[in-house]
């Protein structure tokens, strides 16, 4: 079963109050049966016909160690529990983003000469990415696709001389960038950058995470706006803008995340269907399975920025499937 389905199953169990760990937000991942299965098979192949349970477990743990030893070690270091003896506790976490800059077949954005590759673009994974496909896409784009497709744009530029970085356009954008940094540095408030970022993350996780509703998303949009206003009123960025400053390195992304977070909420509100990693509670079957709406939402929603105060404009790319039949996913 794909990742979105497995994650939602864990969330549903925990929402019903069946979660384990002090937080109630975890499920068990248990290797005891696998250890016995491997141990028995190892004992058989070693010709030990009346192996004791302890012997079987010992043999089985060795097999599991060969396969997953580094992961089990990592788990024990972080949690302090021995996963060979106690079931591991796991819970879903944000891992990958399928959305990204819109690109055409050439991996070029709608800005001529601007290309986006890998996780940065939206192009290949739809609403949910399969395991082991992120590395594939990154390397496909870089080694085998862009080297061809960039020629389409650059072939029109062979007589364009070297671009001069002292042109007025460069000087103007540098000035805007400096002003943005100065603005952040001059707020001089009382709260840390990370405290704001953490609060934003909580809003996103609660309302735009594994399951989403119209009410939740609408409320989240308002909360993000208020938090953003508070950020520009009361954040404290220590040091100076024109020196080594790791805190400033956090402040600029945090400021951008507020705007992105709101756009994610807008996009999630617009897409009134459940598909892949996007689960709208309003759009589910009677059994609680995700319900896709191919009639109304079989498109890519590409958003145009129009300033913080204006509503973004949605552009559509309709998706045609000529070589594949649309089916509902069922992994039962």
């Amino acid at each position, binding site marked *: 079963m794909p990742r979105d389905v497995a994650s939602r199953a864990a969330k549903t169990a925990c929402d019903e109050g069946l979660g384990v760990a002090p937080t109630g937000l975890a499920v068990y991942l*248990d290797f005891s049966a696998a250890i016995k299965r491997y141990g028995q098979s190892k004992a058989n192949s070693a010709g030990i016909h009346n192996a004791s349970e302890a012997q079987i477990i010992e043999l089985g743990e060795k097999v599991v160690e060969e396969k997953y030893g580094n992961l089990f070690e990592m788990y024990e270091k972080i949690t302090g529990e021995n996963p060979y003896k106690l079931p591991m506790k796991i819970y879903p976490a944000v891992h*990958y983003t399928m959305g990204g800059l819109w690109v055409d077949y050439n991996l070029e954005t*709608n800005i001529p000469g601007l290309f986006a590759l890998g996780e940065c673009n939206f192009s290949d994974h*739809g609403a949910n990415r399969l395991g082991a496909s992120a590395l594939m896409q990154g390397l496909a784009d870089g080694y085998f696709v862009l080297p061809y497709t960039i020629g389409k744009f650059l072939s029109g530029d062979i007589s364009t001389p070297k*671009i001069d970085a002292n042109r007025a356009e460069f000087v103007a954008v540098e000035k805007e960038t*400096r002003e943005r940094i100065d603005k952040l540095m001059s707020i001089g408030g009382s709260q840390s950058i990370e405290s704001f970022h953490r609060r934003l993350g909580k809003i996103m996780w609660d309302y735009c995470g594994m399951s989403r509703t119209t009410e939740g998303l609408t409320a989240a949009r308002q909360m993000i706006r208020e938090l953003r206003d508070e950020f520009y009123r009361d954040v404290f960025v220590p040091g100076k803008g024109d020196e080594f400053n790791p805190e400033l390195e956090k402040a600029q992304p945090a400021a951008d995340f507020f705007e*992105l977070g709101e756009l994610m909420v807008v996009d999630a509100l617009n897409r009134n269907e459940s*598909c892949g990693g996007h689960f709208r509670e309003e759009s589910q079957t009677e059994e609680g399975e995700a319900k896709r709406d191919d009639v109304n939402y079989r498109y890519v929603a*590409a958003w145009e920025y129009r300033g913080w105060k204006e509503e973004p404009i949605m552009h559509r790319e309709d998706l045609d499937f000529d070589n594949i039949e649309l089916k509902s996913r069922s992994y039962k």
Partner: protein
Amino acid sequence: MILNANIPDEVKKVPLEEKWTKYRATVPLVAPNNKRRLEIIVVGTGLAGASAAASLGELGYNVKCFTFHDSPRRAHSIAAQGGINAAKNYTNDGDSVYRLFYDTIKGGDYRAREANVYRLAEVSANIIDQAVAQGVPFAREYGGLLENRSFGGVQVSRTFYARGQTGQQLLLGAYQALSRQISLGSVDMYNRHEMLDVVMVDGKARGIIARNLVTGKLERFAAHAVVLATGGYGNVFYLSTNAMMCNVTAAWRAHRRGAYMANPCFTQIHPTCIPVSGDYQSKLTLMSESLRNDGRVWVPKKKEDA
């Protein structure tokens, strides 16, 4: 406005499996003497950025490559554990380019573009050859052949891997290819530089403004084209399995200059991570999905036992 994927007409006409071949046969080329005159900025040195910068340098373009890390090897691709898919059908279990294409479209719940995904499935096999030629130590069977495992619930074994550190080994391969171009002079590498804006000239992307993170000074860089390979935006959730430095800034600043942001609500929540333990945690850790193949996931049947 309805967006156009800009697939050339002559490519649209041919069947899916011939599109990429047709495209390569008809796309305008740039002659070697002209490549020498053209400059390209590549931002990011993960698998996508490092492989692009190395390949473009090898082709003869002048590349300026940027990372905010102290070395390209720190890019977050390094954290990928499980593996890389390729439609090689080495296990003879019925895999094909079409099946990888089909699984990717279906797994993505039919919200991706057919032509792009088919191309991805098609070149997947080349990636493995490229990486093996670079010396990437993929897992091998006793007889020496490359080993595959099944991954993420698909019905075939098409995942190539290097223990639990596939991303790291692939990144080292791409980094070596990049380093070779740096030493040949075709790629200028700028470490500890963070891109903060795109510069447009007459409607085209022609450069970036970057902040030198060591001195704090802003610097201007110009080129004929700009390539962003700056990763995803999972850290909008604050807690994620992404490295703490991963951010959306480069892509978002491009968005503010007019680039469209597509399907931002499509985020992936990975089922097997170590749970949050308290309010002051800043990072989550992924446990490879391969564990789901052998482990059993369960919760107590009754609330009282939970």
